[in-house]
């Protein structure tokens, strides 16, 4: 079973790299699907079956479909993105690399956490999650409805076509700085 972890890990990292590197948005999206699916695999490995299910449904089922939908809608499947200048890319990779390095260096110190002796295999099940959600985490659950409402209302408001003219102000409508 342990190899499964490394397999999934490899798949997710490679897929993530492809997301970043792919030149076409479609390819990126597909790589992201792969990556997310492999993460779902990790969830199963970690005995979070319910979460794995939700993950697949929400991400691959909803979010990614939405993204693909947008890609289609905006008609940019053919579009090939212009790369950024080399120096920018190097700097970006350097920064991310440094972040990784320093994080890894911190973990080398080790978390004071060993595998539990007794393991409750039930925590990942629907029942356990449900109990937690509706007892301990009831308030957040209810409050998240506000979040959804606002996201919904907002998205509707933005996405709806008003039919008004698009007025683009010139880049700099303010007068010159007299002090400059």
């Amino acid at each position, binding site marked *: 079973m342990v190899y499964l972890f490394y397999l999934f890990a490899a798949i997710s990292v490679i897929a993530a790299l492809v997301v970043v590197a792919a030149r076409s948005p479609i390819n990126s999206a597909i790589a992201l699907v792969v990556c997310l699916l492999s993460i779902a695999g990790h969830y199963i490995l970690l005995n979070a079956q319910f979460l794995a299910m939700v993950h697949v449904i929400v991400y691959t089922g909803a979010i990614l479909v939405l993204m693909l939908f947008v890609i289609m809608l905006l008609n940019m499947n053919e579009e090939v993105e212009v790369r*950024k200048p080399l120096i*920018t890319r190097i*700097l*970006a990779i350097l*920064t*991310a690399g*440094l*972040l990784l390095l320093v*994080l890894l260096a*911190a973990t080398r110190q080790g978390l004071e956490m060993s595998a539990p002796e007794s393991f409750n295999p039930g925590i990942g099940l629907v029942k356990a999650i449900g109990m937690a959600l509706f007892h301990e985490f009831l308030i957040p659950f209810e409050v998240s409805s506000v979040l959804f409402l606002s996201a919904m209302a907002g998205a509707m408001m933005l996405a709806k076509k008003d039919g008004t003219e698009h007025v683009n102000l010139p880049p700099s409508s303010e007068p010159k700085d007299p002090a400059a």
Partner: protein
Amino acid sequence: MVRTELLAILVPALPLLGVLITGFGRRKLSAYAAGGIASAMVALSFVLSLLLFLGHDGQTHIVHLFNWITVGEMNIPFAFQIDSLSLWMMLVVTGIGSLIHVYSIGYMHDDPRVATFFAQLNLFTFAMLLLVMGANFLVTFIGWEGVGLCSYLLIGFWYKTPEFNYAGRKAFVMNRIGDVGMVLAMALMFLQFGTLNYVGIMDQAGSFAPSNPLLVMATLLLFLGATGKSAQLPLLTWLPDAMAGPTPVSALIHAATMVTAGIFLVVRSSVLFELAPYTQDIILWVGVATALFGATVGLFQNDIKKVLAYSTVSQLGYMFAALGVSAYSAGMFHVTTHAFFKALLFLAAGSVIHALGGEQDIRKMGGLKGVTKTTYVTFLIATLAITGIPPFSGFFSKDGILASTFADSPLAYGVLVFAAMLTAFYMFRLLFLTFFGTYRGTAQPHESPKVITVPLVILAVLSAIGGALNIPHVFGGSEWLKNELATAVEGMVGEHVALSASTEYTLMAISTLLVVITIWYTWTLFGKKTTLDGEPADMPFLKRLIAKRWMLDELYAFLIERPYGWMSRHFFSIAETKVVVPFTIGTGKTTHGFAEWLRKVQTGNTSFYLFGLMLGVVVFLLITYFSA
């Protein structure tokens, strides 16, 4: 006592009243009214002084008016000290002063600002009276500064001429330099004695050992003040320039009264000076050097008033030489006689100038003795007095000084006698060139009116017989003035000339003889000349140097004036506008530059923002990591 107090207050108050009347009424009063009021005030003052003097009992009276400055331990009263010294000076000031006031009525009546002139003259009298009457250094200092200001105002009375203004400022600033010493001396004495009252200080001074460094310092600083006011080396160049003022001013301020303030101050503090022999030596030699300096420069001056000015410098040097050898009475005596004959000289010179319509150059005079008889006679008497021909007043006073000096330092005596010969030379040169020979000018000479000549006559009388005030013992006199002053001047106690009568006679004979020979020599040079040769172009170096007044003015200009002006300009143009202000502005500009840069960092590029955000995270993580 009440009478003394009232009189003592009235004496300075009357001239002050005169200031107010003539000052406020300067538009409405006629020239004669203003002059009359001013003269009356001073004359009244003189009468009151005389009353005080006659009623004086030889004691020291303090007339306390009110507490002036009270801070902490310091209590400086506004008080007058009435003793024989101040009384004597009051008599001299108001006496000579009233004569000169009267004289000015005639001399200045044409000037449009005559009332202002009298107001300032009265103000001067007031200040001079405060100076001599003050019961402590600070009250004296009021007068001290006051006469300086009046001197400034009166020198620059004809303000339209820039040179006159310059002369006024020069006088004031040089006096101020002396005042630095005066102020510091006062601060020192206050710290040491806890009071500035003359009485208090003189009482306490006795407890100090002679040559105590503090006393030496105090006396030196006081003497610095005196050099400024009395035009001693090195602070003397202002006095000749001060002749820019109207002639009565020269007579009153720059000959008879103000310039003797330094001598008065030293005599006033004689106790201190007695305890500081080191200072006394300095005073002696400064006096001797000044006497010689004044006399040499006087030789080649062609401005009638300038000659007299240098003569004043020289005579003041004599007085200081006397003080330097503790001959206070001789000094004071010379102050008095000098006041008589020098005032007379100036007034007579003024009369001549008046007669010639403003001409001051002696090369353009000559042969006036026939035209201006009174002036000529009085001038002659004064000249005889100043050269020390017996029995004129100058002989007695100068002889006292010479004798005292000889007892102390024969070398100084020698120099002073030499200076006396020079004095005789330039004074008679002046006399001969002015009144003898033939007239070389263009104006129409005429004798001055009575209002001018009467004071001349009075002064001439005084100059002639003034010596009677202090006839020395060798002539059977009683040294009246000395005895009178001795009640007030404690330092005078130790003053006696340790010379035998024969030595004194010999000394008198020598100096008189030398002076007479010099006069004869001068007669041969100038007496019979009808025309005046031009100055030879190739004067020897020394002569040229002397004619240029030893280059002292040039030296000051080179050493002080020009560097100061340069400093003033460049402190501003370099230190101020190139360093201090730019530093402030620069800080602002740098900040603005930085602000501009920060503004541009906000590129609007979201990727860059992301990059910045993440770079921040990484940097902070690294810091956390490495500092753990």
